[in-house]
């Protein structure tokens, strides 16, 4: 499993699983060890595969019987026809790709529905580290130094909302989580300040 997605993984998976219809097709971009797809195969009769760049993760997928394709998301999704999956999922991956705007549009071209989960950089402890200490924030979710982090495209919930508006992407649903809970009152009161993770359900119709 990639080191930058250690926390929340179980709740993340459960919430995404709840969003997906039984017997549908799912493409999981940056699928990690295949835990989400394995869960979807077993609990929802879903079919599909993952895309992953990290070899130990690929081996873990094969060990679970999850089909996985070695691939670099920065090379795009040219191999996939339009709307060829019911869902394209990208869980805690958007921040590591080189061109998030391209991959977000690509996932919504290939998938009828896109589900993106991402770390909210507007989360108050991150803001306070930057404000009071004047240093790049480091947390259990973001454990790296500024110079060695794979997380090169961090964003806030507001950034993603604004991006979707500008790109004509419909946001069907927004789930805001704080400290592994989707029901935390603060997360829904002021998500950009109090949620540490968000899951967006997206759709983009053909122009």
């Amino acid at each position, binding site marked *: 499993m990639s080191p930058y997605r250690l926390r929340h993984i179980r709740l993340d998976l459960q919430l995404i699983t709840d969003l997906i219809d039984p017997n549908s097709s799912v493409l999981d971009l940056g699928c990690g060890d295949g835990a989400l797809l394995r869960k979807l195969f077993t609990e929802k009769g879903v079919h599909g595969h993952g895309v992953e760049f990290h070899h130990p993760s690929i081996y873990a997928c094969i060990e679970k019987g999850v089909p*996985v394709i070695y691939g670099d998301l920065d090379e795009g999704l040219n191999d996939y026809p339009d709307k060829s999956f019911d869902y394209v999922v990208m869980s805690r991956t958007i921040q590591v790709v080189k061109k998030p705007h391209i991959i977000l549009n690509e996932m919504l071209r290939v998938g009828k529905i896109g589900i993106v989960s991402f770390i909210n950089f507007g989360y108050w402890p991150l803001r306070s580290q930057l404000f009071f200490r004047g240093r790049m924030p480091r947390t259990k979710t973001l454990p790296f130094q500024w110079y060695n982090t794979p997380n090169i495209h961090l964003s806030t919930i507001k950034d993603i909302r604004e991006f979707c508006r500008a790109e004509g992407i419909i946001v069907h649903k927004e789930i805001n989580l704080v400290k592994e809970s989707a029901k935390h009152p603060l997360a829904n009161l002021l998500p950009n300040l109090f949620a540490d993770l968000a899951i967006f359900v997206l759709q983009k119709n053909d122009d």
Partner: protein
Amino acid sequence: MPIAPGSIGIVEKKYFTFADPPNEMTLESGGKLGPVTLAYETYGQLNDQGDNAILLTHALSGDSHAAGYYSENDRKPGWWDFMVGSGRPFDTDKYFIVCSNVIGGCKGSTGPTSVNPKTGKPYNLDFPVVTINDMVRAQKHLIDHLQIKRLQSVIGGSMGGMQVLEWAIQYPEFVASAIPIATTSRLNAQGIAFDEVGRQAIYADANWKNGDYTLNGNIPAQGLSVARMLAHITYLSEESMHEKFGRRLQQKEKLGYDFSTDFEVESYLRYQGESFIKRFDANTYLYITKAIDYYDLPRDYGSLENAFKNVNSKFLVISFSSDWLFPTVQAKEIVRALKVDGKHVSFCEIDSPYGHDAFLIRNDGMEKMIADFLSHVYDD
């Protein structure tokens, strides 16, 4: 040399003959061939249902001897010995493993060195041109003869990988999974070019005599040796050659300033060429390289997507990062077509410095993936 621990030990080459006249096998070229003998080996036990079999398909210069030793004094085991045995990826406690020498081969199967029953002499160039499709259809006769009802997997590298693709296409209901390794659905121009230079080296040998030589007489050893030296370079990588030889001199302190062997790499290639002529036949080399060059699924089916349209096998496609003869981009073409067709496919490019030959060298990632993939196929 003592038999390595974990090896399946002593094995025996067996023979199966079919297509006795007048029921000759019709080849893809339209030619007829019969009787046809295939040399083969098996490891492990076939279960009562006949559905725990795995077929290993060999590369250009391979043969039926995938694993084990022929005798206590045997110097080397079979070509994929580290993959076959109790607790190994092709687990002989679980699976019945079959490997046969291809039709057109020179290691016990009917090929150019076999005696033509019509003339009482070796076929040589009277042997009909065989294709990958012919190799696979001949293997199917053997598999049926062995009472195998379903293949859990067909697995092979390079030309063996082409046979894997062909099996999945020709017998979609029979093959539960397919693992093509370091292979392509069609050789690129560079690959054909290297094969042609190898063939030209054989043609240019005065002993070749348009293929009309006998194995007991003067054989085109020099031509075959040069062909092998060239081919061997294409199986390695710049990195692995540098690592293995660098510019080191062969048993000398200074350059010779003559045309004797100076560098270790020269000596190594000469050794590869010389040992090859003891175990392989020049005409056979011509036939098998032709079969590889001819293989072209997009041509035969209009497109690669069309070629795979009816396959039912689960695929695990493997390539190696330093393989420049069958580069990853060719594996990706196979993967792309299978994905477009909505087939079950996994793909991994493995990091290895060993070039095309990497599939014949131990690699933890490859061994783990194949073992895990097979266990899921078998459980399903």
